[in-house]
């Protein structure tokens, strides 16, 4: 029970600890064939992610609210021993899905490499304990294996976060690992051969600029699954509301956390511009260059919340969100501005109940 105790006082528990009961319940009923080293069968992994009721009546909570098809493709990719690349704009639960897949398949989500512009090759391969290296010379004992190497040795899943932020030369060291499933150690004239069950789940952001795109050699070793933004407006409103509320509590803002009034309008604007069509499907729109993901809706709302808290009466109104809304939409000062004005004039203006938002945005235009 040490795990469970550890789970109570840490800020955020690992997936395999937080959902330990569901995982063991699934393992108990799971009689389908399991790929080598897998803790659960592909069916059980899919059920763990998507939720459902087990034959013995135990409820499994859904971890990922979205397309069942995508989760099946992701699980099938891991089962073919092809690496999995989860693509998507920020805020589409890439990391969340990766963590739960690793927890369900390998029973541990702790083997992870965080990709940054400064990620060195050692993080993907191995480093050295220099004291030992100087004292005894190169040996296995002087080596400090990285998460990937440890995953190869144990036959488990390793996660690489933000793969495209890692410099290209470092990225390419994954090619040998993925195609030949070995990690050569030239210093010792040895190699580590991956055990069955080893695989990589990488995540990458497909909207960021200034990233290192994968070389085609590396790219074709991944099965790619693109995670979409939330399907329905209600789902997205719920995500935004929950996140903003928890952020507001954390920042201790004296504002109306109970009734977040502007969320639905902000989410509607974002969704309409993103989709290039209005909610009623009657008017086609141009899409701006900005991502306009759920994450941005959250930031617009948080901004409005703090404006309302510090300069208003604590209730979020149209003028509180207008400025950051325009800022989120208009990233390119020429093209995006035209798109935004078109949206304002053809859509916002024609919605009588949106009059205050239209006025607030027009006021911003004229003051600029």
């Amino acid at each position, binding site marked *: 029970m040490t795990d469970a105790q550890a789970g109570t006082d840490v800020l955020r528990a690992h997936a395999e600890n937080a959902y330990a009961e569901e995982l063991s319940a699934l393992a108990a009923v799971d009689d389908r064939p399991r790929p080598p080293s897998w803790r659960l069968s592909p069916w059980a992994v899919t059920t763990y992610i998507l939720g459902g009721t087990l034959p013995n009546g135990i409820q499994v909570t859904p971890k990922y609210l979205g397309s069942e098809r995508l989760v099946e*493709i992701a*699980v099938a990719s891991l089962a*073919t021993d092809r690496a999995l690349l989860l693509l998507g704009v920020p805020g589409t639960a890439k990391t969340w899905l990766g963590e739960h897949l690793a927890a369900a398949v390998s029973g541990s989500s702790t083997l992870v490499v965080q990709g940054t512009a400064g990620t060195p090759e050692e993080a993907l391969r191995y480093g050295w304990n220099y004291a030992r290296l100087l004292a005894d010379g190169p040996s296995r004992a002087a080596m400090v294996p990285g998460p990937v190497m440890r995953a190869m040795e144990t036959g488990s899943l390793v996660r690489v976060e933000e793969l495209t932020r890692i410099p290209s030369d470092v990225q390419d060291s994954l090619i040998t690992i993925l195609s030949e499933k070995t990690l050569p150690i030239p210093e010792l004239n040895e190699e580590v051969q991956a055990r069955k069950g080893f695989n990589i789940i990488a995540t990458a952001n497909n909207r960021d600029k200034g990233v290192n795109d994968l070389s085609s050699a590396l790219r074709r070793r991944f099965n790619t699954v693109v995670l979409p933004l939330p399907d329905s407006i209600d789902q997205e409103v719920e995500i935004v509301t929950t996140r903003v509320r928890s952020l507001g509590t954390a920042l201790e803002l004296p504002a109306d956390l109970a009734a977040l009034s502007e969320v639905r309008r902000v989410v509607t604007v974002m969704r309409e511009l993103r989709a*290039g069509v209005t909610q009623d499907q009657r008017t086609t729109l141009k899409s701006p260059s900005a991502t306009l993901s759920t994450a941005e809706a959250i930031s617009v709302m948080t901004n409005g919340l703090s404006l309302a808290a510090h300069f208003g009466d604590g209730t979020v109104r149209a003028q509180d969100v207008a400025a950051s809304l325009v800022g989120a939409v208009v990233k390119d000062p020429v093209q995006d501005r035209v798109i935004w004005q*078109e949206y304002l004039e053809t859509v916002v203006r024609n919605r009588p109940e949106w009059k205050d938002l239209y006025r607030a945005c027009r006021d911003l235009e004229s003051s600029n």
Partner: protein
Amino acid sequence: MTDVHVLGIRHHGPGSAHSVAEALASLRPDLVLVEGPPELDGVIPLLSDPEMVPPVAGLIYAAEEPRIASFYPMAAFSAEWVAIRWALSTGTLVRAIDLPAAHTFALHMAPEPPAPSSSEDDGGPSAEDGEPPAPPQQPYRPDAIGMLAGAAGYSDAERWWEDAIEHRNTDPVDRFAALTEAIAEIRAADDRPGDHPDVVENNRREAAMRRLIRAAMREGHARIAVVCGAYHAPALVPIGFPPVSADNKVLAGLPKTKVAVTWVPWTSNRLSLRSGYGAGVTAPGWYQHLFAHWMARDSATDVSTTWLVRVARALRRENLDASTASVVEASRMANALAAVRGRPSPGLTELDDAAQAVLCDGSPLPLALVHRELTVGLELGNVPETAPTVPLAADLAATQRRLRWKPGAMEEVLTLDLRKPGQLARSVLLHRLALLGVHWGEQNETGRTTGTFKEVWTLHWQPELAVAVVEASRYGTTVESAAATCVSERAQGAGSLTELSELLASCLLADLPDGIGGVVTVLAERTALQQDVAPLLETIAPLARTCRYGNVRGVDVTGVRKILDTTVVRACVGLPTASAGLDDESADAMRHAVDSAQQGLSLLPDLPLEDWHRALAAVAGSDRIHGSVAGRATRLLLDAGLVDANDVAARLSRRLSIATPAREAAAWLDGLLSGDATLLVYDRRLLQIVDDWVAGVDDEIFDDVLPLLRRTFSAFSRPERREIGEQLSRIGEDWQTDSGTTLDLAAAGPAIRTMARYLGWEATA
């Protein structure tokens, strides 16, 4: 004793087609009965014609009213096609069995209870009583095999057929017997009431099929094979036949109408629509692939791998990377995916998902590119010349008779006065035919008249036009409906806004209110996505014309009006930005666009112009915008009375000042002045400024600007130029001499009154 074998199939199911081929080969029946209206019997032999290339469709239509028609499409992988071709090639008798279309059409044409005797016997009113008469385009054909496959957890009924039926190494005839039993269970679970319209229709059809089977049995054939939709199979097994009298009662007293029948070419794309057979086929290309694979009986190749190879090749043709190694990975991925989903073998869904994840980097776009070519397919069928006439040709002939207008083989010139209804109808017909690619008449210049009521055509009917009519028949059964469908399809494929505007205009000429709907939808989408402002501006005029004159012709233009309103707003928002930083050539184009938009806007007096004028003001007021456009905007504002002459004089003076490069100044002047010369003739201040500027320009630069200026002034008429010259000669004189001339109002009175009457004003004085 006659031996009757019922082969229940899935319409357009390649698995069914393959099994039927095997079953027929082993049964060797001496009569083949295929589900389909018996009227088809007359044209069935045409299927053996070498010029008959699938996909084709049997077309049955009501002779009086070609609008009421049914299509029976057949592809190479349709069981019906396979069965008929087998019978024709072996010299076996083949017939179609179903409720005759003569009854089906008549039932749908008559709104009252169709068969009084039968509905009395049912003891209750028929459910079809209140049903509106709809054209029977889609006979109800439940996909029983799809239901069985769905129950077994398959997404793809054909893969279920392969696994559950084909892979059993039993006699093909036994397979069908087992299937018939399974379907009987499905039918037993059907809890729809007996008077449900679908049930009533189904009962009637099965009774008709049984009647024809009984007749065939009486003829003394040794073995009969019945190829029918699987759903009907249990009802067509002779052992289970209800008494003859029961069937006769169902079929008694059905109304009848005259029908005609023929073959028309079909396309894969149309197979994928829900037309003809109730069960539409979503992926004809995939079925074709499966069928070819099964017929080749090549166990060495794997159907999913060969499919993925074709996907990869199609991707490469689109210049996308798809290596052989990736195909191998995709194939493994598809199998793993099928395992995760608990399916014994991958279906099209799994193959698509695998191709998307492995070959297309997770993006659905490349797959959409190959979808049309592979999954749907690009096949176009062909029909031999000996096939009977199509309804479109019949409708054309009927229309020509109605207009008392016989096509002549000689070329003749025809002048139509559109104010006379008879001649207007002829013009409409010619415009519609032109849209359909049947170029019977060529429209000529009307000569020296600006009236819109006269059209001159050169008519020449050539034999090839008959072929064009047959080709166009795939769009519809009447000239009007075909032209409307054709316009909608062309609108879908149109490349530019101009093309769409032209289509819209031709819809007006051809009087196609239905076609306008299709064009408007596409236009709405395109205008919204259009990034360039100039094309947007150029669509305003045709749209405005449609609104103005569509009303006159009684077309509903509210949709067009809505697009016009948004287009104006979009164009206005974009105009100032789009006008910045233009070179001479694009500035010219932009000026034309602005002019054409202005022309369009002036057609509709009730259009709110504030946005437009605001945009023009922004253009006119900016010094960074090319002179040609800015000058034009200033002129339009002046004409609209939004800028007064003093202001224009100030702007002209500023634009023509020394600091402005002479070429830019000339361009601005051109924009301001072109059109008509009244501005210069009546405002001497402006003339003075222009004169000063021309005089002050450096000699070298003057050589540069001269051509531009010449172009501006040469557009004026000779009297205008003379007037300008006269004004110039008096420019140094005192202003007062001009206005000192007294007007003799009494002398001018009658002329002014007459003028006022023309303008519709009240002449009071």
